[in-house]
């Protein structure tokens, strides 16, 4: 499993009902079901990944999250996860809004385009940034809405949401180093957040 998925798994409450958007082969959900007693539901647009989930016995709905989460009613999950996909959606604000409709806790991770290496590549070399987490050239990258940590936090605030936790990640997907902790926007390769609605009444997993 990707290192950042391990970190995300640790952020999910035991026994939670979890919706994983862009669940891929179901690795995160498998781990959550097996190790944290969660009830998992995946959403995946790729046909191969859909088959992989079905073959593992993981409930999965074939859908494009950019089409909205219309298959899910309000508050039907405890936690909704979006891992390194927000920047690849057509309408990130709407996706975030939909996530907070179906669950009152969202775990969102994304590549931090505020990282100094990416800034330097654009500022000094005048080339669009690539990084180990986002190696594709500008014309091939799925990341059509790159954002920095500051950008994301501003979106969360403007949507009337609250960042309850922030975990900064290194380029390997593991916890970020000292500089990343101190100056995340400049030195974290990626970040994972726990986001709540601001009017949220803490009830824990049902």
């Amino acid at each position, binding site marked *: 499993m990707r290192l950042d998925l391990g970190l995300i798994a640790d952020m999910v409450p035991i026994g939670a009902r979890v919706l994983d958007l862009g669940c891929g082969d179901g690795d995160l959900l*498998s781990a959550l079901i097996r190790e944290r007693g969660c009830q998992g539901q995946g959403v995946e647009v790729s046909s191969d990944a859909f088959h992989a989930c079905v073959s593992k016995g993981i409930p999965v709905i074939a859908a494009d999250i950019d089409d909205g989460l219309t298959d899910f009613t309000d508050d039907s999950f405890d936690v909704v996860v979006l891992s390194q996909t927000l920047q690849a959606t057509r309408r990130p604000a709407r996706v975030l809004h939909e996530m907070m409709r179906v669950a009152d806790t969202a775990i969102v991770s994304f590549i931090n385009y505020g990282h100094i290496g990416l800034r330097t590549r654009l500022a000094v070399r005048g080339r669009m940034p690539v990084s180990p987490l986002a190696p594709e050239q500008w014309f091939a990258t799925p990341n059509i809405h790159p954002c920095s940590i500051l950008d994301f936090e501003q979106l969360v605030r403007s949507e009337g949401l609250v960042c309850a936790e922030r975990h900064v990640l290194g380029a390997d997907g593991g916890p970020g180093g000292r500089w990343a902790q101190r100056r995340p926007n400049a030195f974290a390769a990626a970040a994972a957040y726990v986001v709540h609605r601001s009017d949220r009444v803490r009830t824990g997993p049902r």
Partner: protein
Amino acid sequence: MANTDIEHGSIGEVVTQRATLFDRDAPLLLEGGATLAPVEVAFETYGELNAQRDNAVFICHGLTGDAHAAGHHGNPARPGWWDNFIGPGKPVDTNEFFVVCANILGGCMGTTGPSSIDPATHKAYGLRFPLVTVSDVVRVHRALIAHLGITKLRAAIGGSLGGMQVLQWAMDHPEDLAAAVIVCATSRLSAQNIAFSAVAREAIMRDPNFHGGDYVDADTRPDAGLAIARMMAHITYLSEEGMRSKFGRRLQNGTTPRFGFDVDFQVESYLHHQGEAFLRRFDANSYLYLTRAMDYFDPFGNTEEAAARLADLDLPFLVMSFDSDWRFDTSHSREIVRVLSAHRVPVSFREISSPHGHDSFLLVIPEYHATVANFLRRTERAPHRSSHAS
């Protein structure tokens, strides 16, 4: 990971079996309050029931299907209606599963229905047959598996009205099923769906040979009405694209229109053939009863009762639709998914691309078959909810 390479084997020759279920002391109590006894059921089985009796899969057929789902009755060129789906190495793999398919209550292919003889009058029931619901159909399925010594199914699987039976079964008796597969079905017919049913029934009932349903006594049959009903229904089973590519505006004979009212276009000839062929195997009263059972089907309708039942539901569902199906389009399947998911039922869903409309569920579509095969393979050990979850 994708298993799109389904090997094709045949079950070979099979025979339809019969069971007599219920008796006067313990009759079938219908949802509407009426009772029936005895109830004859025609069914077929494929594969072997294992010693633990836990490898059974139940196939629920659609509106005009029958117990003969797979294998053949002597002529390999004329296999059962879902032969491409059931057999060794097929999605419902008879090397692993014991498969049961039964003609449904109210039908006319060996199971008690309006064309059966009423033991009280020694005449065909006709319209004196009690109205049956999808729940009633499921009651008879349950009696049959009990008769076969099966207490829990690995899965119930059905397309269209068959899928509706699976949904009803899961809601009425979730303890019977380890998994549910629902293909191109609905949780409730739309006004448009009911409208088509209504016109079909009108065609039958307004046929001068209908005789209030007692056409057998009158030694006649409402053939014109039943054929029209079938022709119209058949249009809804195909798609615009499918019809365009299959028939276009091609003429039956040559390229010059005959400018008359006889069958001229190929599509007319095809529908005529479908209507006529249907007369040889279907009973008009059964058509009335079964379409009516579909109209009234609405297991999510009473939201409080549905919520209570769904709260107990903890079996994995596979729901599928086809993008060109307009009889029960994808929104019908998505509604099932939405309601199940809202009640925390583990559900997998996929819309399959196919130009063949509602009938797609009867065809070999690799993505569709692979999905069912992969899902069924995991029916026992599905880790959708671990034992220590709340």
